[in-house]
């Protein structure tokens, strides 16, 4: 006997969205959450960092008032209020998810789940937060258990909430430190660096690869580093962290750059060296769930090798992004409900909300070249875009990559003001399998910064208008 058609474990942007979709399709659904509805994304990730970054951006913009013919004096900030605003935003959305669960008649079970052998699907045994245990029998179980910050104990990089922070500590500190070393220049490291720098802290970012934001296109990496350096962030690239030790003042980060040893000192070190999937302690070994480099192995419908067991989002592999988790969650819910959508692969954009912002989708130029694909590349800088000039936001550019043979858009890379809001245009184009002809034929509204997206696509075919 099954109590539920589907039990979702984890209520992050993958799990709660999957639960809603399954409920819409008429399934009886329960969701197990050990902490906060909405998971890391809403409570300790995407959303509260955006709140902090907006405070930082607004504060930074005050120093540019003169350029717009404005003036104000005595600009300052209340760090505690900034943090409280961010927590408030998280709280609001967390309550919103609670409301959505109720609206969709999804049973929320607060506790920690563990899987055991079952009949149709594994049995879910929940150790309830309020005490006691509850056993859930379901036809299908979906793991949406996410990931956590990676620790590197062998070099002393383990968050302690005091001198060494992981994202969670960095989101709600009691006081504002004056100096930071951020280890890792992916989206998380860069966003914290950008926020704390905007509030005036001295920030040094250490990156092991020879360029920052290694997943981005090289040109974007270069432009981003320049943009951040202009704002006062320092970088150590090609730098291997050998040891992190606590000192009287704060923390010492020993690095090796080109064979030379160096030590950086700061009040606080933020660890942003990637993530580890939350695959331990949920009984995966006993069930024989196959893993692939620490992540749960799934097929094109998010099914694991165990009957009735699905896995989505961060725990099922890269890219570790909320929207990828939601997309997989919806796909898996539809698959459980008997929909025959062919597979889950869709282009997933990546966004970094620093100043300047970076957004990208699809292949990079280097990736295309390594794969020996013939490409046509177009670029367009915001410095010649009318709206950007009028707004005083001329930093950055748009770069697009087309497959030379078929004209398919296969990659887009943007850096600049609010490019994270624009990248969806290219995501739509790629998802709908647009070719250069389609994009060339789109009428982009004037004046908008999105016109640069049109121009870049025109440039790839030697048809750019405004250069």
């Amino acid at each position, binding site marked *: 006997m099954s109590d539920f058609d589907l039990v979702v474990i984890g209520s992050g942007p993958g799990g709660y969205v999957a639960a809603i979709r399954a409920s819409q399709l008429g399934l009886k659904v329960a969701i197990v959450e050990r902490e906060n509805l909405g998971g890391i994304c809403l409570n300790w990730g995407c959303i509260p960092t955006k709140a902090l970054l907006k405070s930082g951006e607004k504060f930074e913009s005050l120093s540019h008032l003169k350029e717009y013919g404005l003036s104000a004096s005595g600009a300052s900030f209340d760090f505690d209020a900034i943090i409280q605003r961010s927590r408030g935003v998280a709280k609001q959305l967390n309550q919103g998810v609670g409301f959505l669960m109720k609206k969709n008649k999804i049973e929320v079970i607060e506790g920690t789940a563990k899987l055991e052998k079952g009949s149709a699907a594994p049995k879910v045994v929940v150790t309830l937060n309020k005490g006691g245990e509850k056993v859930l029998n379901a036809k299908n179980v979906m793991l949406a258990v996410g990931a956590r910050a990676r620790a590197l104990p062998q070099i002393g990089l383990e968050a302690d909430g005091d001198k060494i922070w992981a994202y969670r500590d960095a989101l709600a500190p009691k006081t504002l430190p004056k100096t930071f070393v951020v280890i890792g220049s992916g989206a998380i490291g860069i966003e914290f660096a950008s926020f704390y720098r905007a509030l005036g802290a001295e920030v040094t970012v250490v990156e092991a690869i020879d360029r920052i934001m290694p997943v981005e296109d090289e040109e974007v990496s270069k432009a981003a580093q320049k943009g951040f350096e202009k704002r006062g962030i320092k970088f150590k690239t090609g730098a291997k962290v050998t040891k992190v030790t606590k000192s009287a003042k704060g923390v010492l980060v020993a690095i090796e750059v080109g064979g030379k040893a160096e030590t950086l000192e700061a009040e606080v070190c933020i660890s942003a060296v990637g993530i580890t999937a939350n695959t331990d302690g949920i009984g995966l070994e006993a069930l024989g769930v196959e893993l692939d480099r620490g992540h749960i192995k799934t097929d094109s419908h998010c099914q694991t090798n165990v009957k009735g067991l699905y896995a989505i989002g961060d725990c099922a592999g890269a890219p570790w992004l909320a929207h990828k988790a939601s997309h997989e969650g919806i796909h898996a819910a539809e698959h459980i409900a008997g929909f025959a959508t*062919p597979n889950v692969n869709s282009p997933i954009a990546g966004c970094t909300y620093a100043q300047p912002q970076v957004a990208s989708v699809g292949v990079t130029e280097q990736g295309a070249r390594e794969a020996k694909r013939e490409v046509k590349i177009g670029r367009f800088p915001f410095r010649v875009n009318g709206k950007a000039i009028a707004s005083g936001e001329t930093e950055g550019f748009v770069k697009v990559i087309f497959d030379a*043979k*078929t*004209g*398919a858009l296969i990659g887009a890379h943007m850096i600049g003001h609010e490019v994270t809001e624009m990248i969806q245009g290219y995501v739509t184009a790629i998802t*709908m*399998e*647009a*070719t250069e*002809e*389609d994009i060339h034929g789109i009428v982009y509204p004037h004046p908008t910064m999105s016109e640069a997206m049109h121009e870049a696509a025109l440039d790839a*075919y*030697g*048809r750019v208008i405004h250069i």
Partner: protein
Amino acid sequence: MTDILMPALSPTMEEGVLAKWHIKVGDVVSAGDVIAEIETDKATMEVEAVDEGEVLEILVAEGSEGVKVNTPIARLAGDDAAPAPKKAEAAPAAEAPKEAPKAEAPKAETKAAPAPVAPSGERIFASPLARRLAAMAGLDLKAIKGTGPHGRIVKRDVEAAQASGGATASAPAAAAAAPAAAKATTSLAQLGIPDGTYDLVPLDGMRKAIARRLVDSVNNVPHFPLFIDVELDALMEARAQLNKMLEPRGIKVSVNDFVIKAAAMALKAVPEANASYTPEGIAMHHNADVSMAVAIDGGLITPIIRKAETKGLAQIATESKDLAKRARERKLKPEEFQGGTFSVSNLGMFGIKQFTSIINEPQGCIMSVGAGEQRPVVKDGQLAVATVMTVTLTCDHRVVDGAVGARFLQAFKPLLENPLSMLA
């Protein structure tokens, strides 16, 4: 009232065959509907309506050949009430516009196939990329099952159809003729080959063009062949050395590249062989534009190395490789395979000792290259072994007489036997 004009499918196209009408008088067409199929030498392309309206008149009958570009071919009703010009007036007035197309203007061959119209008149839903991939692969969207939203045909469906090959892998024209495939031809039954003992493969544009052009050539052109043996040992040595030097550049020169180069140089030395017969006179070509026969799935095509006499071996090798590759992918532009002045056909790789080819009109000669193989030869009264290949020059006697062809081969042979002389 709007006239639909014969379209130019390439910058050099002057006339074409109106192979098939998809509309009849009284039909209402909208922009984007496929209205006709136009055939040029090597390709059949669909023509889309640009305007919309009711078909008032079909001015050029299906199957008409030599229809000049810009001739009105059909007439649509429009909001313009002007009286229709008489057919006789309209036709001669048409002249191909000489305006060069813009560099990046959409070209006919890269343009996504228009939405094919199913017999019911229903639109086929397919992504832009799927349409383009299907057009490039010569697949008929009608035969592909869509797996995208609402059954939309997407890239993966075209790729799957391509991978499975078979039924769906037919040119649009062939697919239209597919129902006929089930039937047998009456001609074979009369000849004693009964129905059901063979499969009938529909004729696509390329097959029809090959059939028509080669029958014409055999009927029109007084062919005669000349044979000559060429020793290749020095060339093989030179080629090995050259390829070693070119290796870092990723270039590999083939024997055929040497043949193209030598033929082009010989054509410059004996310009009478680089000529075309026309009723108005003999055209003596200024450049040696050498067509090279490339076998592709379902036929052959002859991409051209232009001004081959001016090009080095490395360049010829690079171009011929690129042209052959794109020929096999059916991605050549019409101007890349139309208008050579001399042809080279090489069957050496199949071990063919010698053969004669049919002239590719209006060219004056075609060279057939056999396999290079070790043969006994007599040198200074002694029996020796040499690598020898037999080359045949088939000539159009109207322009290239026996002695002219022989002089051409006399110029050609030493270039290959002493490859250094190509540098002179």
